[in-house]
């Protein structure tokens, strides 16, 4: 299998009051071309930091380790100018809040075309491509709407404009951080369908960061579950969600209610999500885990293979997958 992006033992340390905090701790996974990987986690899980490391948007003072192999080169080692060249062109990002990510003082068309203009393309070509992109992302009457400002767009249309902007540089990898969290369900369904269509048509690789298992289930081929800065488990979406190999994933799956039928309230996990600054010993999940033993308190489980493409960081995964 060819790999588009290989995240290998990624480490991110952020400066904290009492010394550096390891917010991403030895995270590894691959994204193959033309596939979507869903990155699931709660607050403090490190999911957004992992995506930010890929697109080089880590906060000042962050230190990285491991490797981000992108088409043969390690993005953590290349020069700053090469990283800038990758960002926006080869790897693009869609953010949760398009109103904050788009420039309120420029028309949508101008922003979508910016990367092309900077690349020195002639203005009639830029204009044609902008209209094409707006049309591709489902914005009606592109010629008129391209002259609108972001605030004149609805939430869903803004998200479409941001997708158009991300596609303008013809990226090979699209990062999407909670792209539909701020949207209504009917709009969310349409945006997810659009992302899935684009991903399939263009053969894009996509990393979808979300806290919502339902969203990830809907679009991702592979899932990576993170907890307190580490990978809890990863594997193919259907297998992972139907038979989790980590008690944390299991609890997340159990907490998702059905819509058309009444689901009993799940037995909630005790406590709150562990944070990297306050990470328990051994397996970070052990204080909340229903099957934790002494070993879990003392020894951090390595991520190991427990089936075809199934990787887990649980000492007792066999009890879950059988």
């Amino acid at each position, binding site marked *: 299998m060819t790999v588009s992006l290989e995240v290998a033992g990624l480490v991110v340390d952020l400066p904290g009051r009492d010394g550096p905090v390891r917010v991403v701790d030895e995270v590894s996974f691959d994204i193959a071309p033309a596939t979507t990987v869903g990155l699931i986690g709660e607050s403090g899980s490190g999911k957004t930091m992992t995506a930010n490391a890929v697109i080089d948007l880590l906060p000042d003072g962050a230190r990285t380790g491991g490797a981000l192999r992108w088409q043969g080169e390690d993005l953590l080692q290349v020069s700053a100018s090469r990283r800038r060249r990758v960002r926006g062109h080869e790897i693009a990002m869609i953010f949760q809040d398009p109103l904050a990510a788009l420039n309120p003082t420029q028309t949508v068309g101008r922003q979508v075309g910016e990367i092309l203009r900077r690349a020195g393309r002639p203005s009639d070509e830029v204009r044609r491509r902008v209209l094409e992109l707006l049309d591709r992302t489902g914005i009606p009457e592109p010629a008129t709407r391209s002259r609108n400002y972001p605030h004149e767009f609805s939430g869903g249309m803004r998200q479409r404009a941001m997708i158009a902007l991300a596609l303008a540089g013809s990226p090979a990898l699209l990062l999407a951080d909670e792209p539909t969290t701020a949207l209504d369900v009917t709009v969310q369904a349409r945006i997810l369908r659009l992302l899935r269509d684009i991903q399939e048509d263009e053969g894009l690789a996509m990393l979808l960061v979300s806290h919502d298992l339902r969203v990830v289930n809907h679009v991702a081929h592979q899932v990576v579950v993170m907890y307190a800065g580490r990978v809890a488990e990863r594997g193919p979406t259907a297998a992972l969600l139907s038979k989790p190999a980590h008690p944390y994933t299991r609890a997340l799956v159990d907490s998702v209610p059905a819509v058309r039928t009444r689901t009993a309230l799940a037995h909630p996990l005790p406590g*709150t999500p562990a944070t990297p600054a306050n990470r328990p010993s051994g397996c970070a999940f052990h204080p909340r885990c229903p099957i934790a033993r002494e070993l879990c308190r003392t020894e951090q489980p390595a991520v190991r293979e427990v089936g075809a493409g199934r990787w887990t960081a649980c000492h007792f995964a066999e009890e879950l997958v059988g």
Partner: protein
Amino acid sequence: MLEVRDLDVSFGRARRRFKAVDGVSLTVGPDETLGLVGESGSGKTTVARVVVGLVKPDSGDVLFDGKPLGPVGRRPASLQRAVQMVFQDPRSSLNPRMTVSAVIDEAWRTHPESAPTGDRTAGLHQLLDDVGLDATVARHRAGELSGGQCQRVSIARALAVKPRLLVCDEAVSALDVSVQSQILRLLVDLQQRHHLSMLFISHDLGVVHQIADRIAVMRRGVLVEEGVATDVLSDPQHEYTRSLLDAALELTKES
């Protein structure tokens, strides 16, 4: 118990005036949970704000035990106490510099008749225990607490004045998934223990289905469908409810 009749609410002036709520009627009975669902702009939050008295309606009646509620300020203290609200974002609904004990104390000062008669500290600890918080949390400032803890404090503050109706506006939406199910379970437990009625507002149909007895669906200020929760969600009658259900994602594998 709670009865809303022909509620009209509009915002803005003159040509910019628009109707946020248009002729909505609904009821919440004793011990009952009514789920109010709809997308942004449907007017569901405005209905909640009228019920707790934060928004003055253009017309319509809001009655509690047959007595008009009226806006906060003109609402009789006993009725004000009876209807309490839990907001979406627990961090912004609590003063981050106030200690948990001060937050609860303020509620008791506002409604002295609900304050414990004897030892206030014992009453405070009992209340915190009720919402699943350790007594040591009382000394902490709200700003030091996690999102889930903050929401528990908000619920404790609402419970402190012994309400009969709890209005929850997206009360679990901003919480982490694993914390969401804790708070849902807490709300359902408290409802049973204290015989509370609930007006539970959410955009998440699955969550509403778990805890509501009846469901009302709003769209653009109008109530389009209302009925027993399982009926509405398994066999919707209105086209809009159907479109909401079609858009809702399920975890069970689809093609």
